[in-house]
């Protein structure tokens, strides 16, 4: 008996393991409630999050972002970078097909990459700025660069390099690429990703159906995706989107306000998913010597910026605004970004140090600062009230100015602000995008702050052509140290992507870059 028991146990466990591996059920549909609709899900023209976060559902890239953030094979089963870093060779898988059954060949790859890097077309062409030529010889793809570009591998896994069908696209009606894209997408486009788009009623609903020719295998050894259909409903109002989910009319609802996370997590029918993200909430500080109106800007002094950061209790903000779902920033970029360096939370709450820094800056008498926030945003309103109270003991008189989104953008671009709220999520699985945006003066005056640090700029330029990964890592470490010390931002917090999902749905993922991934989702009921 003593011997049989372990054997029985082992057998049972083995059986359990096998059943769990094959427990995935195929077929069925899931309904997903979105906060906003897509317009054109073209890899090249997608310019808003509701567009670009859907591209991967329809178009597969040569390489893919793995679940742990590493780059894994996609349509290309292997890739190699030459020693000088100027040639990338990729081997396309054999037998690849588009959703209409036509072969996916090197010609389609050349067509798609040439289209993606055409600056006259979409807003993302700059990501492929280093590419000189793309050529195909059978299944062998060669991407030649003008100069080494360490980001190129990540770009080949980014939505804008999704592979489109050359023949079907060129057959679409229209004289220009824009017209062709519109005709191609409104007709229900031929795709290379896990799904095809069956219908789309602008502003209301969209329907994805399984692409039977998708290349990736599921856990049961048959091609993905598991679901037959994904239906999308556009429900812009947060409260209504949640009601729809609670009423059981949809299987998932995205962008759950953090204030509702606790309540939905307690609902026995729902799972409250907090997907790790690259999203950061921060506030650019105007670092110019003079304000827009010509008056002297106290925030130009690094000590004042540091003082405000020390005077900000991030943990309280995280509690008040994100209901404890967020975490403090440890660097200019989120901890989920490649080459992130940040051993600890930036500027832990220290009002004494803040006071000392302000007196060193000669501002112990206090001064006035204006915080520009988004009108109608409950988060921003909370943020303002909390900051006003935290900073008042230092003599900082915080005023608020509420504006709408484009107005805030305009103020940022023209330098007409003291401090304003902002958010960011990476689109590329590489730190260069966020670092260039937040810190590199020549790109956007360091997110509009006017912060112009020579050492940082030089490091950034060097890192963009650095072929040695170890050296690039060092450059990034140094850049993040400089940025943290110089504090051109009020560092606030990182937040997850909050999606509430019915317990009958498994495997849906929103990636750290925001993409909605339904390829491995399945219905458990």
């Amino acid at each position, binding site marked *: 008996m003593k011997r049989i028991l372990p054997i029985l146990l082992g057998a049972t466990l083995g059986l359990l393991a096998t059943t769990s591996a094959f427990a995935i059920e195929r077929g069925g549909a899931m309904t997903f409630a979105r906060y906003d609709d897509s*317009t054109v899900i073209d890899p090249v023209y997608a310019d808003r999050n509701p567009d670009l976060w859907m591209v991967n559902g329809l178009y597969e890239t040569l390489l893919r972002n793995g679940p742990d953030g590493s780059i894994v094979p996609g349509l290309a089963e292997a890739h190699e970078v030459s020693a000088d870093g100027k040639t990338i060779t990729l081997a396309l898988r054999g037998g690849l097909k588009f959703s209409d059954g036509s072969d996916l060949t090197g010609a389609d790859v050349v067509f798609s990459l040439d289209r993606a890097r055409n600056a006259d077309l979409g807003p993302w062409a700059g990501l492929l700025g280093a590419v000189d030529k793309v050529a195909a010889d059978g299944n062998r793809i060669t991407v030649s660069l003008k100069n080494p570009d360490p980001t190129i591998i990540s770009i080949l896994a980014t939505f804008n390099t999704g592979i489109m069908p050359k023949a079907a696209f060129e057959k679409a009606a229209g004289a220009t690429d824009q017209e062709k894209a519109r005709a191609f997408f409104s007709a229900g486009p031929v795709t290379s990703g896990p799904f095809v788009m069956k219908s789309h009623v602008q502003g209301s609903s969209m329907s994805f159906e399984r692409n039977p020719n998708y290349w990736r295998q599921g856990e049961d050894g048959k091609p993905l995706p598991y679901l037959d259909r994904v239906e999308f409903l556009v429900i812009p109002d947060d409260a209504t989107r949640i009601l729809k989910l609670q*009423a059981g009319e949809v299987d998932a609802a995205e962008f759950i306000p953090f204030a509702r996370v606790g309540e939905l997590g307690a609902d026995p029918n729902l799972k409250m998913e907090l997907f790790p993200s690259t999203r950061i909430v921060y506030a650019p500080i105007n670092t110019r010597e003079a304000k827009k109106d010509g008056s002297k800007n106290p925030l130009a002094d690094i000590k004042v910026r540091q003082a405000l950061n020390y005077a900000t209790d991030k943990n309280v903000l995280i509690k008040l605004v994100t209901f404890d779902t967020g975490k403090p920033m440890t660097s200019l970029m989120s901890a989920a970004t490649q080459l992130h360096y940040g051993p600890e939370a930036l500027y832990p709450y220290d009002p004494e140090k803040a006071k000392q820094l302000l007196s060193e800056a000669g501002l112990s008498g206090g001064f006035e600062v204006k915080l520009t926030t988004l009108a109608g945003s409950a988060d921003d309103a909370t943020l303002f009230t909390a900051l006003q109270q935290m900073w008042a003991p230092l003599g900082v008189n915080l005023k608020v100015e509420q504006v709408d989104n484009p107005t*805030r953008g305009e103020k940022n671009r023209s330098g007409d602000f003291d401090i304003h709220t902002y958010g960011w999520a990476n689109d590329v699985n590489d730190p260069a995008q966020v670092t260039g945006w937040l810190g590199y003066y020549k*790109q956007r005056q360091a997110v509009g702050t006017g912060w112009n640090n020579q050492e940082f700029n030089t490091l950034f330029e060097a890192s963009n052509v650095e072929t040695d990964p170890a050296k690039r890592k060092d450059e990034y470490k140094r850049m993040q140290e400089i940025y943290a010390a110089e504090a051109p931002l009020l560092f606030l917090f990182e937040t997850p992507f909050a999606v509430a999902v019915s317990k009958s749905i498994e495997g849906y993922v929103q990636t750290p870059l925001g993409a909605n991934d339904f390829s491995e989702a399945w219905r458990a009921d």
Partner: protein
Amino acid sequence: MPSLSYLVARLLQIIPTFLLVMIFIFLLVRLLPGDPAIAMAEAKATDAQLEQIRHNLGLDQPLPMQFLVFVKNTLTGDLGRSIMLKAPVTEVILSRLPTTIFLALYAIVLAVFLAGPLAFLAASRVNTPVDVAIRSVFQVGLSMPVFYIGLLLLTVLAAQLRWFPVGGYGKTFLANLYHLILPALSVALYTSAIILRNLRASLIEVLDADYVQFARAKGLSPRIIMTRHVLRNALVSTVTLLGLSIGNLMSGTLVTETVFAIPGVGRLMLEAIFARDYPLIQGLTLTFAVLVSVVFLLTDVVQSWLDPRLRQS
């Protein structure tokens, strides 16, 4: 019925109205801080890319040139391309307009059927508990914001009792009657409260008028007094009010369509403003101007039918 020349004169009055609307909206949207390029590339474009986008959209042209292009295109029925939706404005509006018109008409019908009979009841029992009860209930409707009424209806009748779907709209006429009842109701409550107050007051006034007393003294049946004398006179101001409430109704749909996830022109207008989508904002404003003008015209026609005195002026 009003004469043909009256109708023609009213129609001609619409032309300067439209011209003014076009000038105003053209200038107003450009006075807003931020522009479509900034809204479009919200964060991620460089300044050089923004200039390129502005150039592609023709926003780097001088204002008078842009206005001429706008007027010329509008006269030929071309409202331009929506920047946000990357599709012709006319096409976008035409696909969304029927839903909003359906919702507005539905709301008006509900409002009239709610307010009409109750106004009669209240007016015939002035200052009794019935009258007070009716007025208090509608006072609540008047003082609650539309989105709040909408959310209340959604939470109770849709999410909890499951009598109606939570938002969205149907594909057929009947399905829409069912789908849109809650949004129509939340818009109607406000309008019906206004109608009720006005109709009740005019009814009380008219019921007390000399000609009604005289009609009673003549021995006319209460029914004839009601239809021929009371109703006809009490309705004149109510019809005006109903016509004017089209503005309320339109702003009501703006909010209601967002809360109830209805893809109509109201929600589209909000999205267009946040995207600084100049062509779409202009197209929608013109559409609203046409709608309002048509409603005002209809109001005038109905009024001059109800009250012959108005035809002379």
